[in-house]
């Protein structure tokens, strides 16, 4: 590179016996760059080690779930034991025990329906808070956020009493209502942040062309904010799927969800480690899929749209 490019300093070289300050600086920069790349590689290696360290419990869980019960419970661990799907077959009810399917289906219903309702409520609300904002829109935003800071446990008893009085106890419908209220503030905040990214000109142009609200939603807002809306939905789904406290207090047999099923699962005294790991993986699977799918917008969602 130095031979092909004849910059000004090299021409001046023969005139002075000493390397010019510019050259000294360049040499120092080159040396710095070399040491920096070396340090960079070490730090890259460190990042890999930390990453693998953090994911190792998950990998261990996966490996254990693929071992037989006797191989799963050895000390020191038997890493290279033969792999088997027995634990999964066992979890899904091949041998005795309750089938997890009703719980998984309840969880899926509660999560999917509550997410659908959240979107249906949050999208218009976000429209009224960003595109055609009402007067005190930021007050309303903070009201939504403050409900999220109210600990869930504080409202548990009245909800229980009301549910018992209305016969909603132990029903998926009750969970759908509660999960909707749990995720609605998050969704409103996320959606507002996505909708406010839409250029105003496009919306004005659409309304000048005579598009009504519904058309604007269908033809402008949803296509542009589609990825944001999708990741909002995925995050709401994750939070609903994970929820334990409401589900464990308000359901007993009919509407039991997957996390509740997991807590009631470890009662046997025999060897159960592989089965527990298989169960944990199976129940976490939808969340892992949804989370990795929403990865790009995960930060914006988790910080309620405050961080891009």
């Amino acid at each position: 590179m130095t031979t092909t490019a004849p910059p000004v300093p090299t021409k001046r070289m023969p005139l002075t016996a000493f390397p010019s300050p510019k050259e000294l600086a360049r040499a120092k920069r080159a040396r710095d760059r070399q040491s920096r790349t070396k340090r960079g590689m070490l730090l890259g290696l460190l990042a890999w080690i930390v990453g693998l360290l953090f994911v190792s419990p998950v990998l261990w869980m996966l490996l254990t779930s693929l071992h037989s019960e006797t191989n799963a419970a050895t000390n020191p661990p038997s890493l290279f034991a033969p792999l088997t799907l027995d634990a999964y077959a066992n979890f899904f009810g091949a041998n005795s025990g309750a089938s997890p399917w009703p719980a998984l289906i309840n969880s899926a219903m509660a999560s999917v329906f509550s997410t659908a309702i959240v979107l249906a409520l949050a999208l218009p609300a976000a429209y009224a808070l960003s595109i055609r904002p009402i007067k005190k829109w930021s007050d309303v935003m903070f009201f939504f956020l403050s409900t999220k800071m109210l600990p869930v446990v504080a409202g548990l008893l009245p909800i229980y009493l009301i549910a018992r009085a209305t016969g909603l106890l132990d029903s998926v419908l009750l969970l759908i209502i509660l999960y909707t209220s749990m995720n609605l503030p998050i969704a409103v905040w996320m959606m507002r942040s996505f909708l406010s990214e839409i250029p105003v000109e496009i919306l004005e142009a659409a309304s000048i062309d005579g598009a009504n609200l519904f058309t604007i939603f269908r033809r402008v807002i949803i296509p542009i904010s589609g990825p944001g809306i999708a990741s909002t939905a995925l995050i709401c789904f994750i939070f609903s799927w994970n929820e334990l406290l409401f589900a464990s207090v308000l359901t007993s047999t009919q509407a039991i969800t997957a996390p509740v099923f997991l807590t009631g699962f470890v009662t046997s005294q025999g060897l159960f480690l592989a089965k527990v790991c298989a169960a944990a993986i199976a129940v976490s699977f939808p969340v892992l899929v949804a989370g990795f799918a929403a990865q790009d917008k995960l930060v914006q969602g988790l910080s309620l749209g405050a961080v891009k």
Partner: protein
Amino acid sequence: MTTAVQAPPRATVGRPAPRKDSKALERAAGWARRAPLLPALIFIVLVTQLPFVVTIIISFINWNSLYPNDVYFGWLSNYVNVFTDASMRNSVFTTIILTVVVVVVSAVLGLLIALLLDRRFFGRGFVRTILIAPFLIVPVAAALLWKHALFNPEYGLFNGVLTWFFGLFGATAPQPDWISDNPLVAVEAALIWQWTPFMMLILLAGLQSRPLDVIEAARVDGASTWQVFRYMTLPHLRRYIELAALLGSIYIVQNFDAVFTITSGGLGTANLPYTIYQQFFQAHDYGAASAAGVVVVIGSIAIATFALRTVSTLLKEENR
């Protein structure tokens, strides 16, 4: 008949409104603006605020569901119970310690990892992806994993690794009973593992929003890496750190899954949500549970005030 019904609105829309109606029209326009918001707002008020009002009312009533005939207005007796009952008081301290330790440790770890991930290296995207994984394990599943697959004194991974490692030197390995020896630390470790990715994601986004030209300029002027970090990166990150810590606190104050699963609230790990759950589920003391709930809310409001302020500065910045 249909024409008669349809005609009037058309006429009013076309013509400028008479002065008498202008206020009414304005009001109607205001409601038209508000209309899309109302379903969400009404829903959230009904489902989240109403129960809490009921909680406040019940917190003044002496009410144990095992004695349904003995329900009477008890003034502040439930609150006195909350603050004099040793287990309640302990759970307040446990909640504070648990929250502070988990938030601080995971924020520091998250910052260090975010700094590592902020530089370019081979497989950076992959490392970032696998680092998110702990956050995407269902909390109950993660708690079960830590309790049975890692902490278990007989066949958990930790003691397994100890056996294997000491076996290399032909020594007998110590086999601590992790949960019984340090129950609160065990719960904290599991939570830190889950929440570090959350902190890391927010802080990494903060790092990547730094104005790179300014930092480049500082480097050219001879600022060292430490100086750049201390005087440029850290001040820029401050609000992100606050945001991450406060959002984390909101979730961890309310943590129930890890305490419920790993120790079942035993061995001094019962935090307020767990204690309230227990009061209500096992002791059937509705009044005391409600009073404790109100105390939790007041505590959260303290955190929430700070959180709202932080978020509002970010929101203002975005609109500038």
